[in-house]
């Protein structure tokens, strides 16, 4: 692996200092990092999951709507931010890797560096009602 872009490094460092759950991906959608607050919602430590391609993380957490119907990856805020390079927001349900179903609200936005370099995207999310 090679050194990450400085904007991703700084984003990870910021995420490591926040109590807000944060999920960080590169321009291809590969999961690069999620922080400790996110681990509690996703049900597994990042050290155990490691980096993960978009088609894996967008399904492994089994996102559904309120009635339990599976959501297409393309409808998830972070995938919208990645594909359309714009902010996106939504509420949905996931099943953490600890088997617990959680209602979350997520806001995602692209990371655009100097000279309009597209370097990745970030999602921040909370459990609804907590």
């Amino acid at each position, binding site marked *: 692996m090679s*050194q990450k*872009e*400085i904007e991703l490094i700084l984003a990870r460092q910021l995420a490591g200092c926040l109590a807000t759950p944060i999920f960080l991906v590169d321009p291809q959608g590969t999961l690069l990092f999620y922080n400790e607050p996110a681990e509690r919602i996703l049900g597994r430590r990042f050290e155990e999951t490691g980096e993960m391609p978009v088609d894996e993380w967008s399904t492994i957490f089994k996102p559904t709507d309120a009635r339990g119907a599976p959501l297409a990856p393309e409808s998830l805020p972070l995938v919208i931010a990645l594909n359309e390079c714009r902010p996106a927001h939504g509420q949905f349900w996931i099943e953490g890797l600890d088997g617990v179903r959680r209602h979350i609200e997520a806001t995602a936005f692209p990371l655009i*560096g*100097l000279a309009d370099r597209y370097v990745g995207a970030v999602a921040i999310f909370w459990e609804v009602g907590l």
Partner: protein
Amino acid sequence: MRVTLWGTRGSLASPGPDTARYGGNTSCVEVEGHDGTVLILDAGTGIRRLGLVLPLTPGPSPVADDRRGGMRRIDVLLTHLHMDHIQGLAFFRLLRTPGVEVHIWGPASATLSLHARLTRYLSPPLFPVFLRDMPSTLFLHEVPCGDFEVGEFRISSALVCHPDPTVGYRIAASGAVLTYLPDHEPALGVDRFPWSRDWTSGVALAAGADLLIHDAQYTGDEYAERIGFGHSSVPQAFAFAEMTEVRHLVPFHHDPAHTDDDLDRLLAETMASARPQFAVTPGVEGASFDLN
């Protein structure tokens, strides 16, 4: 290539008897290639004296190095636009010399061009002369812009961890590599530095360099009080050099409050505790390094 330090002080020019050995001028490094190409890294106050020994064109100056002949082109590579890195620019003689091409490379911001950012300093009320009124022929190039070449030098630039857009440079020629990271805080936000190379600022620029000129502004205790200021402690500079497997480290960008005796003591203590496997030469104004 031959690398000469013309200014090694950080943040503020600090002349005086207590800083005479390490030098009081702010960041400026000359890099001369075998073909006579000259790069200047940063335009701190050290660039004024450098300008006096670079020969003018046409014909040599009274202090000219005949081997170089008259300078027709000079390239100034700015890492960023904090004052200690540009304050000497207006006093750089070649910028005021008709017939010389001066190429300035440096970072734009998200909203302002390099030209607009430079003219914030080089215009009244901060300076009486406009950049556009300098008699040399000026070319501005924004970085990072991928790899580029100047004469025999192949140059890479990349953004690094320091407040405001800041780049580092990796300069290669004839199999030798110089990396210049004068303002750099790779330890920012890291619980235990050093850690993963993939997640450390500046690693790609510095990996395996023959000579690394790196920020070493603080003591360890000072760094703890100044996290986020954009600089490294001397021990962190050593750790970064070890992580990137460089052959030779030059601790640089000394804090203006550190006297020569302070720097002697700080470097000696770090050498004793770090026991580096690479060479270390203190960043002393006037020092030169030949890389082959």
